């Protein structure tokens, strides 16, 4: 029975994970939060984002994080290659109303 409750918890966790994924996964097109995972990746982040077609619209709650508007397909792999985590841009991860341009 314990194993079964574990499976139920795993399913609940999956649902939670999907909800989180839904919340934090970058949209196909729209505002996205680019969080540099290293200092090197934070250097010249804005330029790199602009270089792949993104438009910075604000800052994030994290240091060096930027809120950009762009196309996920164009941003995803270059940002991953730079060590930048690309997420959705919910309000609580942005800097106030003015966080997003």
């Amino acid at each position, binding site marked *: *029975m314990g194993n079964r409750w574990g499976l139920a918890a795993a399913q609940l966790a999956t649902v939670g994970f999907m909800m989180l994924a839904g919340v934090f996964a970058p949209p196909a097109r729209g505002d996205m939060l680019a969080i540099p995972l290293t200092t090197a990746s934070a250097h010249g982040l804005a330029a790199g984002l602009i270089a792949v077609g993104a438009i910075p619209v604000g800052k994030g709650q994290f240091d060096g994080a930027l809120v950009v508007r762009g196309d996920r397909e164009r941003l995803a792999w270059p940002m991953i290659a730079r060590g930048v985590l690309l997420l959705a841009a919910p309000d609580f991860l942005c800097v106030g109303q003015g966080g997003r341009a």
Partner: protein
Amino acid sequence: MNVERPMETIRLAGARMLMWLFWLNVPALMLIGWLLKSPDAEVGALAAALLALLPTMMVRRRDISAPARMTLAVTSVAIPALYVFLLRGHAWQMDMHMGFFAALAAQTVLLDRRALLVAAGVTALHHLILNYSYPAWVFASEGDLPRVLVHALVVVIQTLMLWWIVSLLTQTIRLQTEERQRSEGLRKEADAAKERAEVALAELERAQTIATRQRGIEEAARRAEEATERRRLVADALEARLGAVVGDLGQLAGQLSASKQWLFDLLDHTTQRSAELRKAHARADGDVRAVAQDTEKLATSISGVGGSASHTRDHALRGAMATRALTPEVDILSATVDSASSIVALISQIAAQSRTLSLNAGIEAARSGSEVRGFAVVASEMKSLAAQTAEATRQIDIYLQDIRRAADSVSGAIDVATQSADTIDRSTAGIVDDVAEQIRATGEIAAATEEMARHIAEAASQAEALSLALAEAQSAMGETDAAATALSSRSQELQETVRNVLEELRAA
């Protein structure tokens, strides 16, 4: 039967239905995403497939335990969230929330109030969380707590109603299960009673079979006893009959043997008598021939008597005819005598009147006197004549009476003669007939004599044959003597054999 088993059956069926619905959402999400040209169509379908994996594994293992039901409940309310996710920003996003109500209602098939609460809790919780974290996912517009609360109230009401329904269903199913168990128990008792009855019936049938077999055995024994009794009776009857027959045979054999010598003596005596018979036949033949000759002579004599009788008859007939011819003459004579008698009577009457007249004339003459004396004389004479006439008529009458008597005598004699002639005729006719009969009898005697002679000759030949037969009989008697001896010995053997057979028949 476990009370939860029907519940588990229903839950398992519901779980399978939910599982197929989970997998049905995979192509549905793909189709909707393709129609909306959503870049997240594959993601939604993949997420639906990922969510369906674990419940499918549980259902395939027929696991409908409480954790499995929780998993199904969580998955049920997660699937509509995928539609809301896929249609975020779309005008129908709000309509996709109806899926949560359907998902909640679908939990009734699991008959689990906790799963219902989990589904409702997960629905309310993630809406509440998303209302703050990602309000656009909850409503197309910005987050609105009162609306969330209203929706939560609706969810709570639905949950309460579903709770009540599930409780009723669970209670009903349990009651039904208990009733079914009770019925099952009664059925089992009935089956057990039926089995006991069948066992009893089988025992009864076995007992009946045994009884029938026993009756058959008794019947066979009775029949065997009857057969033995019948054999004994038959043996007794056979003994009585065959014993009597065998005894008679033995006695007859003895008598036969005893009669043997007597028969031999009888045969010798018979042979002697046969020889004497042949001699007697020879003498009888000679006597018969003599009788035949005498019979011929007798026949000739009888024929002569017959001729004399016929001649006498002819004469008698002629006499009778002559006598009958006198009868009219005699009758005429009688008539004449009668006529004469009447005339005589008339004369007598006239004489009487003459005397009366003469008497009257005398009386008158006496009274008249002498002048008429002559008249008195005449009267006297007339009286005398009348007296003479009367005397003469009396004499005539006497003569007539004599004549009448003579005629009567003649007539009687004629009748007697006629009768005599008739008698002679009949006698003669009888003699003729008798003679004819004697002639015929004599012929028959002659024929019988000849026949007797022939028979005597045949008897002689038969006597010869009898002599031969007697000789053969003597030889046959010798054989009969041997046969009688053998019969006596075989009779004893038969008696012994019959005794043995009867003893075996009684012993069988």
